[in-house]
C-alpha cells in the first residue's frame, strides 16, 4: 500500500537520505533498522509530510502524497507516532487522546477512546490527570494510543522501545503484533532494538548512513552474521 521509490531527503544543506526504496504491503509489519543518525526518523518524517523530499516519489495506494500537508496525510489514514514521546505534558490524557482523533466526529471520538483504553487500561484509570505525570512507559502507551485514535490504515512508528525496560518493550511489541493481526493494520517500524524488531516484523531494511545496505525477510536477516556485526561490532 505504501511505496517509496528513489527517495532523497535533505536536512537544510545536508542530504540525509540518498536514494532509498521501501515498500509496505497490506497487513505487513516492516521494520527499518539502523544506528543513531542513520536517517531512519527522516524517512518517517518525509512520509508523514513534515519534511519534503528532494527527489523521489512516495505513493499511498497508488496516489502520490509527496506534496501533501501532514493534516491531509493523516486524513488519508497514515498516522505517525514520533520518537521522543511528543505528548502534551500539561494537557490531560483525555485531551491528548481527543487531539489524536482530531478529524473524528464527536460520537466516534468516544467510541475510539473506549477502544484505545481497552488496549491500554492504564490510560483509562487516569484519563483526567496530566499526561506529564505518567511514567516513561505509560507515556509511550499514551503516544501509541493517541496515534490509534485516528483509526489509522497505516501506522508509522518511530523507536517505540526508546528508554523502556525490556519487560515494557515486550508488552508494547506484543500489543503491536496483536493490532497487526487482529485489525490487519500495516506497520512501518523504525527501531534500534534490532532483535525485537526482527522478531515481530515480516520484512526489514537495514539503513546505514542514509542508504539501504541489506533488506529481506526478517527471519532470514536475523541469522545473518552481517547483522550481528552491525550491532556488536564483531
Amino acid at each position, binding site marked *: 500500500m505504501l511505496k517509496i521509490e528513489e527517495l532523497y531527503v535533505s536536512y537544510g544543506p545536508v542530504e540525509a537520505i540518498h536514494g532509498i526504496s521501501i515498500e509496505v504491503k497490506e497487513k505487513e509489519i516492516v521494520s527499518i533498522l539502523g544506528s543513531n543518525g542513520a536517517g531512519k526518523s527522516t524517512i518517517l518524517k518525509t512520509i508523514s509530510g513534515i519534511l519534503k523530499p528532494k527527489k523521489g516519489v512516495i505513493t499511498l495506494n497508488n496516489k502520490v502524497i509527496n506534496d501533501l500537508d501532514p493534516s491531509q496525510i493523516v486524513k488519508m489514514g497514515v498516522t505517525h507516532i514520533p520518537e521522543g514521546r*511528543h505528548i502534551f505534558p500539561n494537557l490531560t490524557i483525555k485531551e491528548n487522546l481527543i487531539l489524536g482523533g482530531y478529524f473524528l466526529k464527536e460520537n466516534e471520538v468516544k467510541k475510539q477512546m473506549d477502544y484505545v483504553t481497552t488496549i491500554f487500561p492504564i490510560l483509562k484509570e487516569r484519563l483526567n490527570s496530566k499526561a506529564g505525570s505518567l511514567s516513561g512507559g505509560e507515556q509511550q502507551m499514551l503516544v501509541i494510543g493517541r496515534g490509534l485514535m485516528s483509526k489509522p490504515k497505516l501506522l508509522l512508528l518511530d523507536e517505540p522501545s526508546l528508554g523502556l525496560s525490556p519487560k515494557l518493550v515486550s508488552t508494547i511489541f506484543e500489543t503491536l503484533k496483536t493490532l497487526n493481526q487482529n485489525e490487519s493494520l500495516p506497520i512501518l517500524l523504525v527501531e534500534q532494538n534490532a532483535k525485537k524488531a526482527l522478531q515481530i516484523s515480516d520484512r526489514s531494511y537495514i539503513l546505514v548512513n542514509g542508504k539501504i545496505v541489506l533488506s529481506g525477510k526478517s527471519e532470514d536477516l536475523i541469522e545473518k552474521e552481517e547483522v550481528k556485526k552491525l550491532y556488536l561490532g564483531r
Partner: protein
Amino acid sequence: MILLNLLIRGLITGAIYSLTSMGIVLILSTTLVMNFAQGDMGMLLAYFAFFMLARQIPYPVVFVIVILIGILLGFLFEKYLMSRARKTSHLGMVMITLALTMIFEGFVGYTFSTMPLLFPKAISGDPLQIFGVIIDKHDLFTFIVSIIIVIVLFIILYKTKIGIAARSLAEDEFGARILGIPINSIYLFIWMAAFAIAGVSGILVAGRQTLEPHFMVVIQLKGFMAAVLGGMNSIIGSVLGGFLLGMIENLVSFYIPQIKDSFSLILIVLVLLFLPQGIFGKREVRRA
C-alpha cells in the same frame, strides 16, 4: 466600610486589567508570543467605535461591529504578518507586536488628532448603591462582561477540540503537526479571538476615562502584571491576577499613597523573581 468600598472598587479596576491580561495570556499560552499590541489594538478599535457612535449608530450595534472588526484584523494579522514572522525568529514576532503599537498610535494621532475625546459609557445614568457601596453602572457592566468572556474562553479552551488543540501548540508544535492538527487555522483562530477581546476592552476602558492615543498603554502594562501574578499560563489565573492587582492597588493608594505608582511595578519584579509561576499559576509539568 471604607475597606469594603476599596475592595469593590478594586474588583472593578481589576476587571479592566483582566480583560487585557486575558488577551495577553491567550496569545502567550498558545503561541508563546508576548503580545505588546493587545492594548493598542483595543485603542484603535475604540476610535473606530467612537466615530460609529458619533454617527448615531446604537451602542449595542457598535459593540458587535467592533468585535467583528477585531476578528477581521486578527485574521489579517496572523495570515499576512505573524505566520511569516514565525519562520524568522521569536524576537521578530515580539518586535512585530511592538511595531503595531507604533503604527496604531501614529495612525490614530494623525487621523483623529491627539486631543482627548469623551467616550460614551455602555450604560449611563446615576450610580447604583448596593449595601452602601456606590457602583457606576458602566463599571458593573464591565465587571460582568469580563466574567462572561472568561467563562466563554474557558469553555472554548478546555471543552472544544479547537481549544484543546490551541493549548497543545505551545506544549509541542511538532507533536500537534504530526497528529494532523491544522495548526495554521488554529493560529488564525487564536489571534482572531485575542483581537476581539481587545476591542471589547478598548470600548469599556474608554468609557471610564477619555479617549486618546495612549490611553491603553498603562492598562496594557497592568495587564502584563496581572498576567504575571496569575502565572502567565492560565486564563483563569490571569483574571484572578487582574482582580488581585486591582484590589492591592486600591488599598495601597488609599493607605500608603506615597508609593502607589511604583508599588505594583516592584511587586511584579519580586513575583517574577521569587514566584515565577505566579500566585495562581499551576506548576508546569516538566517532561522527564
